[in-house]
């Protein structure tokens, strides 16, 4: 498309000092601070209403149909460019960082605003920014001398109409994409909740009934674990009486499906606190440096091992605190939302221990799947942590005793296996979906720029123009 290009100052007035519209001192006008202009949307909010006398000096001044171009960094790069519309009494004032451009008779404001929003144009503007660090601005001369395509007004109308069609579609797609992201998180939460409550896969009790065979109730499972717990206590050579783990008050707990049983964390796992930093030691203790997990490494349902620090520990400390695959990690505290969150250690780093704000629970037997337990703690367990945690302003913490008493529902082992398999399947699908949606979002942003480019290349709009449309456009424009 061979549209003539002209310097912007030839087709528009750059930085006109006053509005053309007559306005009295006591009239109300719209005040637009920088925050009122949206990024990349060619839109602005309604701003505030002020008396003209109060804002007519010390601020930029403009009228309906002017294009506002933010010249300062990072507003310009972020695309804070818009046509001024719906101003009270047709007049507005605003940030001094707005460069006001008033299109002449041969230039449509909307056409210009979209043109300036193109990435190429903003990139070129950025490259000529001048001024002190943090105060870099686009010089007025760049804007005045900027060469822009100047097709006939009728063509400009068509370009703008075509652009608005495509942009409105892209915005609808973007809104849908945002909703999808939110819903993926909720789908995650929903499916986990269903999983730990026994609504996700068929109950072992039901399957056994249909197949007319017996099944192992979780009570039996629990018995096995108790036996092992007793044995280990005895093996450890501890003195005194063995204390059975107290069962939780099942009456106070939500109902659980057939075949399940309520128990506590301490009944099924050995709970261990971590190493305090800066622990005082006798001079002769030999220490060496080992990696360790901090609260930041332990996320809700995952581990973030991007940055693992090291700490000095004695041989016996390392032996006691060394994490083994299957260990379940719990955060002792921090922000309220970090309380009790955690995940399963899978042996990613050899000889890794943990600090004192991270608890580890090691299940006595293979009768409880660590992932099930961790998922439970991260979802329905959260209520317990919140209620039993100690809360000060902004911080919360949970003691080892309270953590030990965490009520835990146990499904039969076969059912645990089914639940874990199903959850892993569903969560991986959701994760994939999330990835795709992110990519789509980024590509859509790119598509918007491609649409702008096509518009100003002349490839977006068909050539012929029916007379009726022209007539209606003139009507709509007035």
């Amino acid at each position, binding site marked *: 498309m061979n549209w003539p290009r002209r310097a912007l100052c030839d087709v528009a007035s750059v930085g006109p000092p006053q509005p053309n519209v007559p306005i009295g001192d006591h009239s109300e006008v719209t005040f637009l601070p920088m925050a009122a202009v949206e990024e990349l949307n060619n839109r602005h909010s309604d701003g505030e209403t002020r008396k003209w006398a109060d804002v007519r000096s010390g601020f930029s001044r403009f009228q309906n149909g002017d294009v506002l171009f933010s010249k300062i960094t990072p507003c310009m790069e972020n695309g804070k460019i818009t046509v001024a519309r719906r101003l009270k009494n047709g007049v507005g004032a605003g940030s001094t960082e707005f460069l006001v451009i008033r299109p002449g008779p041969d230039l449509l404001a909307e056409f210009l605003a979209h043109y300036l929003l193109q990435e190429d144009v903003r990139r070129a503007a950025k490259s000529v920014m001048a001024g002190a660090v943090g105060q870099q601005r686009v010089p007025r001369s760049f804007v005045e001398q900027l060469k822009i395509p100047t097709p006939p007004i009728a063509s400009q109308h068509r370009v703008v109409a075509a652009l608005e069609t495509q942009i409105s579609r892209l915005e609808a797609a973007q809104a849908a*994409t945002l*909703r999808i992201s939110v819903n993926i998180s909720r789908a995650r939460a929903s*499916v986990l909740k269903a999983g730990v409550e026994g609504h996700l896969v068929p109950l072992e009790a039901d399957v056994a009934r249909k197949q007319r065979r017996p099944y192992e109730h979780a009570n039996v499972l629990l018995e096995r674990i108790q036996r092992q717990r007793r044995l280990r206590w005895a093996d450890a050579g501890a003195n005194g009486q063995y204390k059975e783990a107290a069962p939780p008050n099942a009456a106070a707990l939500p109902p659980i499906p057939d075949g399940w049983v309520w128990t506590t964390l301490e009944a099924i796992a050995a709970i261990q606190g971590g190493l305090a930093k800066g622990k005082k030691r006798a001079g002769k203790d030999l220490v060496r440096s080992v990696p360790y997990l901090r609260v930041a490494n332990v996320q809700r349902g995952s581990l973030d091992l991007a940055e693992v620090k090291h700490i000095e520990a004695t041989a016996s400390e390392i032996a006691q605190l060394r994490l083994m695959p299957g260990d379940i990690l719990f955060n002792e505290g921090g922000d309220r939302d970090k309380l009790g969150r955690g995940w399963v250690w899978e042996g990613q780093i050899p000889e890794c221990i943990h600090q004192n704000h991270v608890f580890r629970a090691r299940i006595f037997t293979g009768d409880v799947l660590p992932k099930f337990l961790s998922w439970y703690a991260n979802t329905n367990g959260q209520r317990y942590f919140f209620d039993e945690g100690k809360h000060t302003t902004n911080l919360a913490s949970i003691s080892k005793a309270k953590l030990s008493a965490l009520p835990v529902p146990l499904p039969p082992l076969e059912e645990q296996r089914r639940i874990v398999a199903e959850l892993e399947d569903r969560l991986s699908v959701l994760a994939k979906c999330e990835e795709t949606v992110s990519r789509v979002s980024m590509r859509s942003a790119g598509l918007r720029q491609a649409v702008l480019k096509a518009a100003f290349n002349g490839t977006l709009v068909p050539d012929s123009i029916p007379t009726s449309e022209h007539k209606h456009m003139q009507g709509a424009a007035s």
Partner: protein
Amino acid sequence: MSEAERLVQKLWSYCHVLKDDGLSYGDYLEQLSCLLFLKMAHEQTLPPLSRPSPVPDGYDWPSLLSKDGDDLERHYRAVLTQLGKQHGLMGVVFRKAQNHVQDPAKLRRLVADLIDRENWVLMDADLKGDAYEGLLERNAQDTKSAAGQYFTPRPLIDAIVECMQPTPGGTIIDPACGTGGFLLSAHTYMTRKHPNMSREEREHLRLHGLRGVEITQPVTRLCAMNMLLHGVGPSAVELEQQRRALLKSGKKADDADAAIDRMLPVRRDDALRELGAERFDMVLTNPPFGRKSSIQVVTEEGETERESITYEREDFWASTSNKQLNFVQHVKSLLKIGGRAAVVVPDNVLFEGGAGETIRRALLRECDVHTLLRLPTGIFYAQGVKANVLFLERKPASKDPWTKKLWVYDLRTNQHFTLKTQRMERKNLDEFVRLYRADNRTKRKATWSEETPDERWRAYEYAELIERDKCSLDLFWLRDNSLMDADNLPPPEVIAAEIVDDLKTALEQIEGVLGDLSRGADQVE
């Protein structure tokens, strides 16, 4: 069991027998339509009616009945071909019809046991009409066929008709009639509401009151049969009598045929191609969703492609490739001054910029656009569709805009329907129909207020609407619980369905952009 139930059972059982042979519901309907037509035409030639047969000699019902085995199959195919060349109702029913029944024995059973045993002409119209409709709905549910896009859910149609309250004596057109749902619902409504119609009114309703246009031949066939079975429109025998009378009065054969074709209630055509001269009292329609036209175009290179067509029409406000926007413009043009319309439109019609904005602004000025019903997802057979119903009245030319208030009913936010387990029913639309106040729209009362922000019915002033960015009518005020309520998580399937809907929305929008971008790029080359 009652007669009705017995018949429906029989029709279904044959359908299932043939399904095992690989026949889809659509195929079955096609065979059924052709055979029913022949049988009914034959019944009318017998005493006491003794009318002349519209079917050419040697191709009529007795000729089928007398054959068996491969003979039958051969002759049946010949009948389909020969009758497909005729004009009038016969032509519409038989054009491009094919035999899908591979096994001649089964064809024989269809002919001799199913069709021949009943007297269809004498059978109650409601009975056979409902049975046929039941098959049509099953056909729409068959996701392997594309038939779902031609089927608007019946509860929605009935609610719309109840709001529009058509009266006998008027004319109604559906320019995208599909299988005729809107037209037949209007017919049923009028015959029930006005049981004491005069003979003239009844005849007018039967022959002139309802018109449909449908773009694809197979669906036109189904619509024609649907109407015939419900007693709407002239029968083939009547048309034959007319044709002979015209020929006798000196008209040429071609002219007589053309005159017969014009008497049909439904015709196959692309409604957007041409406005035509006729204007109507009412338009009820659900234009097809989606961007692609069903028209296959042969390009200069001899390849077929599906075009998204831009129509050049003097009466249109803006030129666009968006089919639904074009239908909105077309609907307004079809109306008499004072005529009223209800149009099902997707969200794009409400928010799309450019041509969409031009059209919305003109529509609000030149018509009284008084009601917008935002429909829930999960009710159409085309999945993920976000649709609405616009109600408007065409007004005479004026310098002042005609729309004063747009009343919006949000049946979408926090509503979850599915096609199988949670179907939308007529009762879900009861509140809307009641608040619509068809008896007197000036008496409408909003249920929403600042104190009751969770209610679904509220009005927007014209001034508010035109101030909105792009004059968008995509109006929502209810909080979407699914996006907010962390404590009351719906079950995973509900959330997953919403994700699918949004994915489809995003996909559709981006495909729209892509379509226009590619066309532009092609033209430059």
